[in-house]
């Protein structure tokens, strides 16, 4: 019973989301370029978004819905907004960092280390 032999369902979405999430985490953990790290963050967020949407699927709600059935999508929208805001702030930080240090290498950002 492999995923490949089944019609596209919730599990497939979850797999894609997990792959995206892991890709994002790996990017964050390995990239020294701040912009790369930001991209990794976007991947993580969107991987999570996919999960929300997958779990918000009508297939999982057999019983009569007490909501309008858009919970997952709604939270995904929130996350998108959140990601936009976060990207704006992170880019601003990066820009300033660049202005100060002349680089966007996050390993150089250790002024506050204990």
């Amino acid at each position: 019973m492999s995923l490949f032999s089944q019609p596209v369902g919730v599990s497939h979405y979850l797999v894609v989301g997990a792959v995206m999430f892991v890709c994002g985490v790996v990017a964050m953990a390995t990239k020294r370029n701040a912009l790369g790290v930001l991209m990794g963050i976007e991947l993580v967020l969107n991987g999570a978004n996919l999960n929300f949407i997958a779990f918000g699927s009508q297939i999982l709600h057999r019983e009569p819905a007490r909501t309008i059935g858009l919970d997952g999508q709604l939270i995904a929208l929130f996350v998108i907004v959140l990601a936009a805001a976060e990207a704006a702030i992170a880019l601003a930080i990066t820009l300033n960092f660049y202005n100060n240090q002349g680089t966007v290498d996050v390993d150089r950002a250790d002024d506050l280390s204990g």
Partner: protein
Amino acid sequence: MDQTASILPLLLAAAWLLPLASFILIVLAGPKMGRHGYLAAYVATGAILTSFLLSLAGLGMWLVNHGIPVAAHHAERAEHHAAAASPTSADFPQAGISKARLASLRTLRARSDDEPGDHAEASHAGENAEANQDAAEHHTEKVEYAGSWYPLYRSKTLLIDIGYYIDVLTVCMFCMVTLISTCIHFYSIGYMGDELVDDYVDHECRLPDGSHLHRAGRFARFFQYLSLFCFSMLGLVIAGNVAMVFVFWELVGICSYLLIGFYRERHSASTAANKAFIVNRVGDFGMIIGLMALWGSLGTFAFADVGGRPGIFSQIAEAPGGIPTGMVKAAAYDEIQAGVAPTGGQIQSWRDRHLGYGLLVVAGLGIFCGCVGKSAQFPLHVWLPDAMEGPTPVSALIHAATMVAAGVYLVGRFYPVFTPEVLLVIAYIGAITLFMAATIAVAATDIKRVLAYSTVSQLGYMMLAMGVGGWLAGLFHLFTHAFFKSLLFLCSGSVIHACHTNEMPLMGGLRKKMPWTAGTMLVGCLAITGAGIPFVVGFSGYYSKDSIIAQTLSFSRVNPAHTHLYWIAAIGAALTSFYMFRLWFMTFAGQPRDAHVYEHAHESPKIMYVPLVILAFFALGVGWRIPGTNWSLNNFLEAGRPAVGIVQGVLWSSLSVPREHLSHTDLGIHTNATLVAFGSALSGFILAALFYGTQKLNADEVRQQFPRMRAFLLNRWYIDHLYDLVFVRPVIFFAQRVANFDRRRIDWLIDGSARWVRGISRLDDLLDRYVVDGLVNIVASWTYGFGLALRRVQTGRLRQYVMFIVVGTVALFVLASFLWNYAAAGG
């Protein structure tokens, strides 16, 4: 009549309150009133002058409305004296505000006629009714206005109010006090003039480094005190109840304290002020007992009936036998508690047993005790000579118009309360005072001290007169004495002002330099000795002293056991004459003894000697009768004579107080007394003239012959020493013991406990520092170490953090999956 009842109290109240207004004004504005506060003098003098004019208006109003009734002894001869000038009743439109009571008090003093033998029987209550019937036929009517201005406290049993009681005595006292105070105020403007500086040098006060004290002048303050003094004295006189009297009594005391201690930097002045105040407290203690006896039994403080409550005097006057029902009931308290109903008959039987008489005696003695303190009578006279430390105008004020007059006035006011036994005590106290002070005055050399002892002696005369039944004689002497003693004091002040010394041996021959002072002082001396042409005319003292001696003679005839009172009075007259002329001769006559003093002497400014002349005029003529009328101070005062309650002793049944008019009507007594008084005064004068005037006799030889006598007199009968030995030393001894106890034992105890507390707190400190702080520090150091350890984790490398997050998350998931499995297995 309606007008008198409403206007007279207002007039006198205004006269009373004006000095208070002046006092308050000077307190508030004092030093800002002109340069060095000289305007304060004008404020105070203006206030008292206005008071005098108001009092004079009151006197005029009284005379217009009531006139002066024919003297009592004439009246009693003419039976059924109609007393046309004295109305019996009237309706008053302003009854609520000033209800005047026109008492028709029956005088009980005409109980039986001249034979003393009858008195003993008449005193028994069974016959009192008849005796009163007799008395009623002779009744004279005393006009009095009493009322309440403001009730301070009102309950069923007690009413304390600011009220007034105005009779002839009040009106006379008002005029006398304000007149003399006015003169003294004017005089003080001159006398205290040297206080009008910023830098006053007190030559009699040396600082520890030997220099004189420098201080700011206190001109305004002096007048401030004078105003308060006048206010207090007038309040005392106008007071309508004993509670109010007591308040003003104490106010007078505090004023004298302030003024005696006016030069407070001088040690002698401050101790003299303390002495005056403390000695007076002793007397006041007795007075409070008297007040309690009166209030506790009679249930009222008021003199006269106010608002339907019977006052003290009417309760006594209306009681048959003179013991008020309240006192009878109070004395029979046990029987009433046991169930005996106090009906009329029962009260009568109690009264027959003289129940309540002791209470009356206690009340009388208590009141007199206060007067002993205020009027400087024998055991408590010691403060008065020391009071000379005040400025001389103050001495004049204290000795003439205010402080000491208050005591005599109060004895006169409370005359109906005194039983014959109390009167005898008063007479003896007066006689002892009179004799002792006169002898001390003979030896004194300080001019003011001579006068001070003379005052004490004259006060003794007044008390003696009151004690032997001479109500009028005593008060009459109070008035005449007020004038000539204030005159004498102001004269001596003038001398001191000129010579800067009090010592008479340094003076002499001053009459050429100070003619006005010498002349007016001579008038004062003549007045106090009672000079006059017998049976024709004399100085004021002649009349008053004569009547006193006549009354003592009259008393000694009725009570032969007490004849020595008469002799003391006669000898006292000789002594008075001797020491007064000794003073005058030593000061003004002869040759100057100290050239330095004589050169500096000068006549005082006009503002000082004009009051002297005014007072001299009164000292001369205050005893005179206006020719062709019966208008004299004597006859006027007679109209205010209170009803006398008891004339026959109960405890000593042989004691009987003769009626005062007997000493006037009985020609034998009158002639004798006049001649004796004149003779003794003359002998005193001759002796003084021989010793100090012509120097035919040498005073030094006498002094050397009686050294012990001299020491005895110079040391004032060793009474101060005695008090020092009996009261002051033991108190100081005891105080030192107590102080030692305090220092050794109590301080030891306190120090010990303090040491304990210190030890405990030291322990506490250790505990706090090592245990509590230790715990806190351990926690803090752990936290610190933990933080240090965590510090290594925070590398600042972003990717490492991400790794941590990932590893942490994975670890959490792994953990959660394990737990999930277990939980699922368990569930």
